[in-house]
């Protein structure tokens, strides 16, 4: 479980996050949603320590990230997997070497075991057979999946995904979402996903945090999100007239 306590973040004099208090649970896909520019990426970067918060605390199962020494942080990071918005695969290495990289760096297992683990992870994301390709020979969706394989290679306890399905078609997005959600449940990981994809919100959002202009505006599950009566949340989720109509129908259906 990750607990965020009174988190503030500003760049120079520009306040980006204010007073964020929330919890991200074990074995659940926790979503952070919000408009472009609302501060999702900044919040995630604070969570993993790529940005220093201006104020507040971030607790990883009780261990305070903001109070850790460099060494403790490095150790904590070995329990973290992260999928970047841009995939961030090492382009000088093959897909297999990419997935093996964290194992080569930190695992004490033999080469054969490490290779097997990497191949297993690639299989898990349906990339069996692509292991000797280079990242630039893969499609965007395959790169995302390869990056997921690399993120889970070390069996992390915490998994962070920044917009895992931005730039992907709806079908591939569903595949990625399902993958993230399955991996979370299989290994009882605390997963945090940044998204503005409504299919993901409805599909895998077990715990949804809605951020509006840097403030926490709503929190709940995908069951509650449809019926919540928070104006800004509804304006965001049901942005088009079509989806507004859909919402009316759903609510009418439930009532009837």
């Amino acid at each position, binding site marked *: 479980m990750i607990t965020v306590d009174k988190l503030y973040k500003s760049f120079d004099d520009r306040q980006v996050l204010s007073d964020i208090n929330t919890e991200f649970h074990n074995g659940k896909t926790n979503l952070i949603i919000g408009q472009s520019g609302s501060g999702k990426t900044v919040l995630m970067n604070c969570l*993993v320590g*790529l940005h220093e918060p201006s104020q507040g605390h971030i607790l990883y199962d009780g261990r305070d990230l903001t109070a850790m020494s460099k060494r403790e942080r*490095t*150790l*904590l*990071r*070995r329990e*973290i997997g*992260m999928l*970047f*918005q*841009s995939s*961030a*695969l*090492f*382009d000088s290495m093959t897909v297999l070497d990419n997935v093996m*990289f*964290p194992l*080569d*760096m*930190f695992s004490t297992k033999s080469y054969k075991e490490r290779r097997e683990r990497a191949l297993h992870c690639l299989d898990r994301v349906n990339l069996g057979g692509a292991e000797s390709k280079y990242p630039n020979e893969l499609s965007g969706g395959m790169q995302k999946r390869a990056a997921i394989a690399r993120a889970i290679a*070390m069996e992390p306890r915490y998994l962070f995904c920044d917009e895992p399905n931005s730039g992907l078609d709806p079908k591939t997005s569903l595949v990625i979402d399902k993958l993230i959600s399955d991996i979370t449940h299989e290994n009882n990981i605390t997963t945090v996903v940044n998204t503005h994809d409504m299919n993901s919100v409805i599909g895998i959002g077990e715990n949804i945090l809605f951020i509006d202009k840097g403030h926490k505006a709503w929190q709940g599950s995908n069951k509650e999100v449809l019926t919540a009566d928070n104006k800004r949340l509804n304006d965001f989720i049901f942005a088009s007239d079509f989806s507004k109509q859909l919402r009316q129908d759903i609510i009418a259906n439930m009532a009837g």
Partner: protein
Amino acid sequence: MYIIKFLQSFGEYLLLMGRSFQKPERFKMFLRKYYQEVMALGVNSIGIVLLISLFIGAVICIQMKLNIQSAWMPTWVSGYTTREIMLLEFSSAIMCLILAGKVGSNIASELGTMRVTQQIDALEIMGVNSASYLILPKITALVSIIPVLVTFSVAAGIAGAYCTAYFADIITPSDLTLGLQHQFTQWFFWMGVIKSLFFAFIIASVSSYYGYTVRGGSIEVGKASTNAVVSSSVLILFSDIFLTKMLS
């Protein structure tokens, strides 16, 4: 204003070097990376070093013989000066200036691209000291391979001088040999090697600094690559003066 900016960059540079010179997490991974860098930065530069040194050696010999040497000078003058110019300046300082262009821009653009595509962030998130993993092998590789390049450069320069003797009849081979062997001071060779070690460190570390600290996108990567070449060239020229004075 400029002074504050300079001091700030210099401080950042020192901090980055501090992070780079830390014990590698896995020695095996370091060796693998070191080997790759020796290939990429050193072995891949042998061709250009040989080519340029060969031509410069030939041209110096021609200039000396046709434009400098006159009747009252001993016959060994051309060979002697060619050798000393190669040993004292060309094969160390000038060759490193050329390498600053080739290797420096390579290092800065590679690290800069890794920075803007978040590959460096990915390393950090895994708990890898990205500075030490990426920069230390580059510095050690270039510093350890540069004496080889210097030696190749001197040899190619002398070969170039012999080309003017055998193929162009500018100078007789025996005059050239006499000159090349005249009052040979071994220390001059070591001086070139020692200077080149410093220059190699400047090229690798300064270019790494510019690449590693890129903020922004592809335009900034291009700028960083230019800055890396300009700054390391200027630093090589400055330090050359001090090193030459100190080692002479």
